[in-house]
């Protein structure tokens, strides 16, 4: 990390920025909207936590550039930053009373003044705690940077754990209750929850215990993690394999019980995440492996969904001139995937000679064409136009004469997760094969790849077809989940979301697709209670993330093949090698 010498001007600049953001937060209303939303019950509201987080982060940043890793300097920086930034906010509070700004800034209100002065009659006196706590927080942030890396990680992990769980307290409580329910003792959950959580957010005791627990956990992970890894590496091969199988079984068990643990709302989110992850795996092959920028990916999703709709709908005759086919889900599924693959290839052929931006534009057009066609009067008699298709069949599983209908998100979860797992498996096998290498070579340099004997036409079409197939599968499940589809469900935003998902996760990385799906699709849903601030928070998180980790959350690892894999086939040296 780059550290420079102490530079007062730079510290002041960061301080002004921190203060500016505090004023911004106040004026958009974030500091008043969540006054009742406690992170620690009756102690710390989410709104005030934002002030502290802001000062902590800027304290850290200022220390990073100026502290020279010295304690004294760091504390000094924290004090300057804390006082300057909170003073700026205080000025806003002081002038908002005599200088009525509410015409322009709705949120510069008495509520804001009350909140930031802790309802003190004397405003100047009331601002003191804000300045003190804000300064304390920025000093803590600055000092955190000076800490040795291990302790820095531990402290950050503990703070983040307390904040994140406190913010999502309601969901966490539900999950805990569900876990107790799973073990047949729903009642035992109550006292535990009561001890750890207040009516909203943590109880003070709970927050302290969580902080310590997270710190200890992070300490063990960061300090002991490498030792454990080494020990596992030293185990004999059979033991390592058993360990891997054990882990897989454990993950499998978790996956099975997950919907029960998470409850209805979170399961619903999870199904959406899994559908997008499934699409992500497909686009990851096209963009991540083969380097073909496809912006019309939603087209194949739509084709899969519409094929499923037309084949299984029982109410087709109401909106179209077709008599219902009335197939069941499983019969229609391969046709839906097949149609998507077919169109993947049909689109692939004309764009074989295109690269980069040009390819992106053409695929973008293709995506729009499919949506407009679905909406058109021309196809209205066949696929329903703007009225869409209703009465799409739910998947059923035959079971001793009868049939289980997968209707709730809890049940659909299994179907989607199996599909996503299948896509992940296929992606993984293809990536490590001859096809995967050809894709990557093509991504690196198309001309040279061709000169190495790679058939570009076959290689590109295989990528397009596989990617389209996964998307079609996702579309078919999506249609069955909603039982009705409309053209406007298949807009450009879906293509962009899936593309962002693989970029956020790490282009070309398989775990990255899952992480990207959770962050990009799951997080906005979790933040739903923050209503109009949801996208602001989410956007800020994304920008921060791309600045801090541009390679994605879980970047693709380089394969080790010479010295690690396939040692058993090491040949005897040939004469030419001698």
């Amino acid at each position: 990390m780059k550290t420079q010498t102490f530079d007062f001007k730079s510290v002041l600049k960061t301080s002004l920025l921190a203060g500016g953001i505090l004023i911004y937060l106040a004026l958009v209303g974030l500091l008043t909207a969540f006054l009742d939303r406690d992170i620690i019950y009756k102690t710390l509201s989410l709104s005030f936590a934002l002030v502290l987080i802001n000062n902590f982060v800027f304290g850290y940043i200022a220390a990073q550039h100026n502290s020279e890793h010295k304690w004294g300097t760091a504390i000094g920086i924290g004090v300057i930053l804390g006082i300057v930034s909170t003073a700026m906010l205080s000025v806003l509070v002081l002038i908002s009373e005599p200088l009525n700004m509410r015409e322009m800034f709705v949120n510069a209100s008495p509520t804001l003044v009350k909140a930031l002065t802790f309802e003190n009659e004397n405003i100047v006196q009331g601002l003191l705690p804000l300045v003190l706590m804000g300064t304390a927080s920025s000093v803590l942030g600055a000092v955190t940077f000076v800490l040795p890396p291990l302790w820095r990680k531990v402290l950050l992990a503990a703070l983040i754990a307390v904040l994140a769980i406190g913010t999502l307290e309601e969901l966490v409580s539900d999950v805990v209750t569900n876990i107790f329910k799973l073990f047949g003792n729903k009642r035992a959950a109550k006292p535990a929850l009561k001890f750890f959580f207040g009516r909203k957010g943590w109880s003070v005791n709970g927050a302290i215990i969580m902080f310590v627990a997270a710190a200890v956990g992070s300490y063990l992970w960061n300090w002991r993690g490498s030792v454990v890894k080494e020990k596992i590496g030293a185990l004999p091969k059979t033991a390592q394999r058993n360990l891997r199988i054990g882990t897989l079984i454990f993950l499998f068990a978790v996956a099975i019980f997950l919907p029960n643990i998470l409850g209805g709302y979170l399961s619903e989110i999870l199904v959406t995440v899994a559908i997008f992850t499934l699409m992500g795996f497909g686009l990851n092959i096209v963009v991540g492996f083969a380097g073909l920028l496809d912006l019309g990916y939603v087209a194949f999703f739509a084709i899969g969904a519409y094929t499923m709709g037309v084949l299984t709908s029982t109410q087709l005759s109401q909106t179209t001139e077709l008599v219902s086919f009335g197939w069941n889900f499983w019969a229609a599924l391969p046709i839906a995937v097949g149609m998507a693959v077919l169109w993947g290839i049909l689109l692939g052929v004309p764009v074989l000679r295109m690269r980069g931006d040009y390819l992106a534009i053409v695929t973008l057009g293709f995506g729009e064409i499919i949506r407009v066609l679905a909406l058109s009067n021309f196809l209205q008699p066949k696929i329903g136009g703007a009225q869409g298709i209703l009465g799409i069949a739910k998947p059923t599983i035959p079971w001793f004469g009868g049939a289980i209908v997968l209707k709730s998100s809890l049940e659909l979860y299994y179907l989607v997760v199996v599909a996503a797992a299948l896509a992940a498996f296929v992606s993984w096998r293809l990536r490590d094969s001859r096809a995967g290498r050809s894709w990557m070579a093509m991504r690196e340099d198309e001309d040279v790849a061709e000169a190495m004997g790679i058939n570009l036409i076959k290689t590109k079409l295989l990528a397009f077809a596989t990617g389209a197939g996964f998307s079609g599968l996702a579309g078919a499940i999506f249609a069955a989940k909603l039982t009705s589809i409309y053209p406007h469900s298949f807009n450009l935003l879906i293509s962009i979301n899936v593309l962002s998902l693989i970029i956020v996760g790490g282009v070309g990385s398989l775990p990255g697709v899952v992480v990207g799906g959770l962050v990009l699709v799951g997080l906005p849903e979790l933040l739903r209670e923050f209503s109009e601030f949801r996208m602001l928070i989410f956007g800020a998180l994304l920008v921060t993330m791309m600045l801090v980790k541009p390679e994605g959350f879980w970047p693709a690892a380089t394969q080790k093949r010479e010295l690690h894999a396939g040692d058993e086939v090491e040949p005897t040296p040939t004469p030419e090698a001698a």
Partner: protein
Amino acid sequence: MASILSAKNVTKRFGGLVAVNNVSVEIPEKSIYSVIGPNGAGKTTFFNCITGFYTPEEGEIIFQGHPIKGIPTDQITRRGISRTYQNIRLFSNMTAMENILVGEEPRLKSTWIGAIFNTPATRREEAEAAAEARRILRFVGLRGLGDQLAKNLPYGAQRRLEIARALASQPKLLLLDEPTAGMNPNETAEMTGFIRHIRDELGVTILLIEHDMRVVMGISDKISVLDYGSKIAEGAPREIRDNPKVIEAYLGTGAAGQVDPA
């Protein structure tokens, strides 16, 4: 000796510019044949005509008795011609091993279905391909560097890796485009020795492009000289060295007889 490749009256134009003008060469099997000429003489264009990257407007290219003009690049590689590039063009974000494995592509038969189900045949082929790649790494002297990303290798190693990648398809004719560009005299000497070693050990015919005459004089069996797209001389190194036309092309009019270009 039978010729492995013969180009007859090859002409390639770009608009009004004649980049290669009526060039004919016969490359004897298992020889080291060099094409030299000043910068911009049309050497690389001539290369690109052989590998199918360009299709010449006129003329014929015969490889092992079959015409190959107009055949797609990847098919020509599968027939046994592979090449390196003047400005190194490795797959820079892939490891050295992966680069060589891509080079082995023409010899691999496994399909994507086989890959998904991880069939025994696929597993065997992959294991053999990896073993072969390790063998080639050793042959070019890059043992132990296989897991490095190509872009992280030092310059000389990148040159060698590019040759390794080209050798991986087990070509009958290897085209090297200025393999010593950017090298100091020591590295150049090492590289020329290595080129001879490739021919002697693997029995590969080598077609070499150079603009530095000193490099080719020592190792070439036969040399052609291009200037402004046309062949101005052909012969053994000694004949080329003394050819006044060649000296003129390299050093300008009036220089013949005054300077020894080698």
